């Protein structure tokens, strides 16, 4: 049976390209055709690079052809060569628009590559285009995009999560095997959970942010979306590691295990003897019963595979949300000061009064949620309130990190928790109450505050919609976390929920007939 280009993983594509079973050009063409056919219903993309992507695919095929028959030459080709990928629209890619989901960057064309874009190009990946997102990555549903409303391929009346909603929806809808997101308070893990895919926020400093539109610089991390843990590991390996253009990127070596993550029986066996901590504060009031059931079932299957589970307490969790919504807006208010209409972006200058030009450029260019956060952050940093809000939040952040330190000191391999207290909600359900939207991030924010790596993996369905389980690990433990995720995939490979695929998009795109 030949490989289905839409369902193929990056690992499968890499093998098929090397054997000559399929070409990167045929795969890329199939995905681009699908995207164009389905975009009216999914709305995941802000910019497609059809011709450029086809050119990159042909260049990859030429390298496979040249190396065919020569085992050493084939093995030396990069693992992502010819593999299609989507970028969240806050990654600068030279010669393409970068809007960050905002009208204030409408018409902006990136004059340079972000480091991760340059690394993906060097790895020979085929960059399909840029995906929709909440404006400046502020939001949990992608409804705050200034451009379009991305749907969830499982139910087109529901949000895909956010802020990296376009990248998550594209991978979940089999439009790309891989995509890039960013995660400041959960913006990779939460949409991964709500669309039924794998999404990882690496350790703070693991991946360079050079050329990525900044939101909150002490929290932002770039990370992979994929449909399997192995694929996520390959992508993390391609983008991670020290970058001299980003002083906050770490010199910590990138583990070679990411390139050869165990799967199947080997991954399942490795779960034996693992010690997992189950934080009681993450099973919060308001969590949907179906979500709790699926996460607890995942925990039980880890236990059945030979892992031990112990309940722990992370007592500062209840203050994490408030801490985040002071620190992140404060940093955002400083980062977003650069959008002044002078050097690039939308501009309302020219009326003769400089201050008026700033007020109009920014007042009209930013959408409602971004304005709200800039106001919150400016207030928290203003004279007279700085100690009460900003310094206080920085102190509580220390306590959040200490909670996690105690878990690692007790010898646990990872924390297992829900990613999101609920499944994907209907459009509009949280748009009138900002705090209800913020609460969606309650389970993901603590890892950002502590700089820890976290991955959301599909663990079941609730009322026909995907549920994600979150694994949080100690700093720099991405390969162990993804190894555990791969083990979980192995032990649940025959679970009934794994056989269920999203069909709503295909039904709508084919005119209602399934």
């Amino acid at each position, binding site marked *: 049976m030949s490989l289905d280009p839409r369902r193929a993983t990056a690992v499968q594509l890499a093998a098929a390209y090397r054997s000559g079973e399929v070409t990167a050009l045929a795969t890329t063409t199939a995905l681009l055709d699908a995207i164009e056919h389905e975009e009216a219903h999914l709305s995941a993309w802000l910019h497609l690079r059809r011709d450029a992507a086809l050119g990159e695919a042909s260049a990859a095929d030429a390298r496979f052809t040249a190396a065919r028959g020569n085992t050493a030459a084939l093995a030396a080709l990069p693992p992502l060569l010819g593999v299609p990928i989507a970028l969240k629209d806050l990654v600068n890619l030279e010669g393409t628009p970068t809007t960050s989901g905002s009208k204030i960057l409408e018409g902006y064309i990136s004059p340079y590559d972000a480091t991760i874009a340059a690394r993906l190009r060097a790895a020979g990946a085929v960059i399909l285009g840029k995906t929709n997102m909440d404006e400046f990555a502020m939001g949990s549903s992608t409804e705050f995009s200034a451009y379009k409303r991305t749907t969830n391929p499982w139910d087109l009346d529901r949000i895909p999560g956010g802020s990296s909603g376009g990248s998550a929806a594209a991978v979940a809808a089999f439009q790309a095997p891989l995509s890039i997101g960013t995660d400041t308070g959960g913006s990779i893990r939460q949409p991964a959970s709500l669309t039924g895919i794998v999404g990882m926020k690496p350790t703070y400093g693991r991946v360079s942010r050079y050329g990525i539109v900044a939101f909150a610089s002490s929290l932002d991390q770039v990370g992979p979306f994929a449909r399997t843990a192995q694929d996520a590991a390959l992508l993390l390996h391609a983008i991670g590691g020290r970058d001299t253009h980003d002083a906050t990127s770490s010199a910590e070596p990138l583990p070679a295990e990411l390139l050869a993550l165990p799967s199947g029986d080997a991954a399942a066996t490795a779960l034996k003897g693992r010690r997992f901590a189950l934080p009681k504060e993450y099973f919060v009031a308001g969590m949907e019963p179906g979500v709790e059931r699926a996460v607890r079932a995942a925990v039980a299957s880890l236990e059945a595979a030979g892992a031990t589970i112990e309940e722990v307490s992370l007592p500062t969790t209840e203050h994490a949300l408030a801490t985040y919504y002071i620190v992140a807006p404060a940093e955002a208010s400083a980062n977003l000061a650069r959008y002044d209409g002078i050097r690039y972006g939308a501009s309302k*200058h020219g009326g003769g009064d400089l201050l008026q030009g700033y007020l109009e450029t920014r007042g009209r260019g930013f959408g409602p949620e971004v304005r709200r956060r800039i106001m919150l952050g400016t207030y928290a940093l203003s004279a007279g309130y700085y100690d009460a809000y900003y310094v206080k939040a920085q102190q509580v952040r220390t306590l959040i990190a200490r909670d996690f330190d105690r878990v690692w000191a007790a010898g646990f391999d990872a924390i297992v928790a829900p990613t999101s207290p609920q499944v994907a909600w209907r459009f509009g359900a949280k748009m009138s109450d900002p705090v209800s939207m913020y609460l969606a991030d309650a389970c993901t924010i603590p890892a950002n505050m502590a700089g820890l790596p976290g991955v959301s993996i599909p663990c079941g369905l609730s009322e026909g919609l995907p549920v994600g389980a979150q694994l949080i690990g100690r700093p720099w433990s991405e390969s162990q976390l993804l190894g555990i995720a791969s083990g979980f995939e192995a032990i649940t490979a025959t679970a009934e929920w794994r056989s269920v695929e999203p069909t709503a998009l295909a039904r709508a795109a084919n005119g209602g007939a399934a």
Partner: protein
Amino acid sequence: MSELSRADVERVAALARLGLNPDEVGTLQGDLNLILEQWAHLASVDTSSVSPSAQAIVQPMPLRDDTPEASLPVEAALGNAPARVGDFVKVQAILTEEADG
């Protein structure tokens, strides 16, 4: 913490260089007060002996060698400028004639 008045919201908006219409000021006043009220429990956390963390994972701050390298070409750097004159971004005058000299 006391509630933000309309004047407080206008003052913060001016600091943030956000031009808001009267309706937007009212909406933000309500939103900010709602949000800050929800966060009031932070004040109850005992942090008397806790030092603040600016970031959680503290890395040595590396410096690269001070060697010149190519930077963005002028045309690329100016490509997105709303207005330019020659090799410069054109901006409004920041000094009035009276203040000049």
